[in-house]
């Protein structure tokens, strides 16, 4: 059967290099010797954000993949580095890098600025940041679980999971006033306290999720069709996960005990003895497939519940910010000088913000954001290898990609895309470092 494919010679679609498949082709696959390109994206129902994956397939088997980003670069770092914005205004930008990790980026960003400027955060504020970020993890993982179910064509699970997710959004709204974009962290503390009369609502939500956890595990992990679609699919070997620097649940599902909350504890996290969760905690040998990624994320919901519980019980009294007056904070930050790195374990993995402040400047000299998806994107290559077309959506979703958060500039000159090789990038980074040192 010769598949008519006019797009094979399309100048817009990149030529995808065919990877050598190391196994013998048998039967129908050998008969379908011809391969053809299947473009997924930039706009496609399986993708919630624009990215282009071009697959080379033989029949239903994937033999090659090309990943292109650069469709939704928003230039947030650039906006932050421009003159005329003060740090509070930039905090708003940081909050809007990601709609789902909308407290993770501010936490990493405020930490970076606090380290650069030498600001202390009161213990109570640290606890509040931890509570909000763990609530966010619950909502993000439930959101992901629903999306994953949808990608598998299991819409009932999507609707039920998202209904369950409403509870944590209610709690977040109760605590911060917003369902997303909580606007909680500020340099030197948090903007809102958790009042004693709000505790019962949080406790109620914890009890609600504790009661539902077993049902959720049952619905996702012991459903025969979900198992048939996720076991052995999109495998990321532990060695590959390590080599490709995967982070977050993507790495942990492959059995790497990697979690910034455990490896480099920050804020109040040392008090909670966070331990990275792998499928071993559920009595499974880590394979690194999609099933393991579901296991890890659902177990992390329970872990977050434990952390919130401990945080509520041991909440220290005291101030919630070291700068109650914003003008004083801004004046202090304007005088501050130095560089700082902030990190946080976002629901998708480690997020890093690097900032450099200059004395007398209201805005940032340098701001560099590394979203977790940036680290996880490369792990798509081994995961897609030798899989079927039907597995594309769930494998793509399995790293919980946040495309726009990690997007980078894409150079197009004279109608042609420009690819910079490693050497050129290295040279550019040397030049930039020298420029920064001056």
């Amino acid at each position, binding site marked *: *059967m010769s*598949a*008519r*494919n*006019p*797009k094979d010679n399309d100048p817009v679609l990149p030529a995808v290099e065919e990877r050598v498949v190391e196994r013998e082709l048998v039967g129908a696959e050998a008969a379908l010797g011809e391969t*053809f*390109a*299947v*473009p997924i994206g930039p706009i*496609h*129902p*399986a993708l919630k954000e624009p990215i282009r994956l071009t697959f080379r*397939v033989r*029949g*239903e088997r994937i033999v090659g993949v090309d990943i292109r980003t650069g469709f939704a670069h928003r230039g947030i770092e650039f906006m932050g580095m421009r003159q005329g914005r003060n740090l509070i205004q930039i905090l708003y930008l940081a909050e809007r890098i990601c709609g789902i990790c909308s407290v993770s980026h501010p936490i990493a960003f405020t930490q970076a600025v606090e380290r650069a400027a030498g600001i202390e955060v009161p213990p109570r504020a640290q606890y509040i940041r931890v509570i909000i970020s763990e609530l966010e993890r619950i909502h993000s993982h439930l959101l992901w679980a629903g999306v994953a*179910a*949808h*990608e*598998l*064509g*299991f*819409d*009932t*699970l999507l*609707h*039920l999971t998202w*209904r369950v997710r409403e509870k944590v959004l209610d709690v977040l709204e109760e605590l911060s006033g917003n369902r997303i974009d909580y606007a909680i962290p500020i340099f030197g503390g948090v903007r809102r306290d958790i009042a004693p009369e709000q505790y019962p609502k949080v406790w109620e939500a914890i009890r609600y999720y504790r009661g539902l956890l077993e049902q959720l595990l049952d619905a996702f992990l012991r*459903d025969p*069709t*979900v198992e*048939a*679609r996720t076991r052995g699919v999109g495998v990321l070997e532990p060695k590959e996960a390590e080599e490709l620097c995967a982070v977050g649940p993507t790495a942990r599902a492959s059995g790497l005990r990697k979690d910034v909350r455990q490896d480099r504890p920050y804020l109040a996290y040392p008090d909670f003895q966070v331990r990275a969760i792998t499928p071993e905690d559920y009595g499974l040998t880590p394979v690194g497939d999609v099933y393991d990624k579901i296991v890890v994320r659902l177990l992390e919901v329970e872990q977050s519940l434990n952390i919130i519980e401990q945080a509520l019980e041991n909440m220290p009294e005291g101030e919630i910010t070291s700068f109650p007056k914003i003008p004083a904070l801004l004046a202090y930050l304007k005088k501050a000088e130095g560089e700082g790195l902030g990190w946080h374990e976002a629901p998708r993995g480690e997020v890093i913000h690097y900032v450099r402040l200059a004395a007398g400047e209201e805005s940032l000299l340098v701001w560099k954001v590394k979203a977790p998806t940036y680290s996880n994107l490369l792990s798509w290559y081994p995961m897609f290898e030798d899989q*079927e*077309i*039907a*597995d*594309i*959506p769930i494998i793509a979703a399995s790293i919980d990609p946040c495309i726009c958060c990690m997007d980078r500039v894409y150079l197009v000159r004279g109608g042609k895309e420009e690819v910079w090789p490693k050497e050129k990038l290295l040279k550019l980074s040397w030049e930039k470092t020298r420029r920064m040192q001056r």
Partner: protein
Amino acid sequence: MSGWAILGQAVLALVGGGIVGLLYRGLDRKIAARMQARLGPPLRQPFLDLGKLLAKETVIPKTAVAWVFSAMPFVAAIASFTALLYLPWGPFGPILEGHGDALLVLYLLAVPALAMALGGFASGSPLGVVGAQRELVMLVSYEFPLAVVLVALAWRLSTLGIAPAFSLGQMARYPLWGVVGPLGLIGLVVLLVSLLVVTPAELAKIPFDIPEAETEIAGGLFVEYSGTYLALFYLADAVRTVVMAGLVVALFVPYGIAQPLGLAGAAAQAVDLLFWLAKVFGVMAAAVTTVRVGMARLKVDQIARGFWWRVTAVALSGLLLLALDKVVSG
């Protein structure tokens, strides 16, 4: 019966079949929504969808083989609607009885699938091609167990001396439940189960909706279809649901309730027709709605393996049990 009477009945059946198909589509969506804790669209939504599609521009891609691409929606719709004329409508026998039997219905059910596959190949889109390949794999997977069920029933009917045994009208008139012995009863149940498994596959609904697979291949076969052509496919799908569910009813539960209730004449016919509609709805709700709500989409190789080994084995064992029953009870 005069030609005019047949023509009148045919028009009634075609229009009625279309309306019932769309109405059941709405019920299906509503029930599925309730099961998923949603409100769901209003019952008339399929009619609105159809009207909107008909009003929209129909685009034929430059890369498509235009005449195949445009012909296939009509082929699919005509085949689906024609099958309505060979379906026993409760108290009424098939309108074209004697001019085609159950095997023809089988083919008429397969034609829309083939038409969709051809349309997908002709669309010139890689996603359409993938969808078409999947549709063909599905077709060769589920047609065999379906044929086994039909052959088993017809064979048992022929041993009773009923001719023509392959006529859907006769099959509906002489249900086998009261005739066979205990082994045969088990055999009939097994055949019914395999037919109910084939039903969602025939209609390409979750877990067997791989030719469309929205999240995977963005609608697959239909990815390039729009406007009137898509409306025709939509209508064909709705009608096919009625035909498939009607087939299950005709083969396994063709009973009416008018006689036990002591009704006669027009009232009996009306009651039986309503009861038949209820039965068709029941089959659809059981085999399509609940299944598509309760499962994830399977992969093409899983479906092919499942049908070739499991469902075919189940259907064949049903046939075997019927045969054994005949040997044992004579």
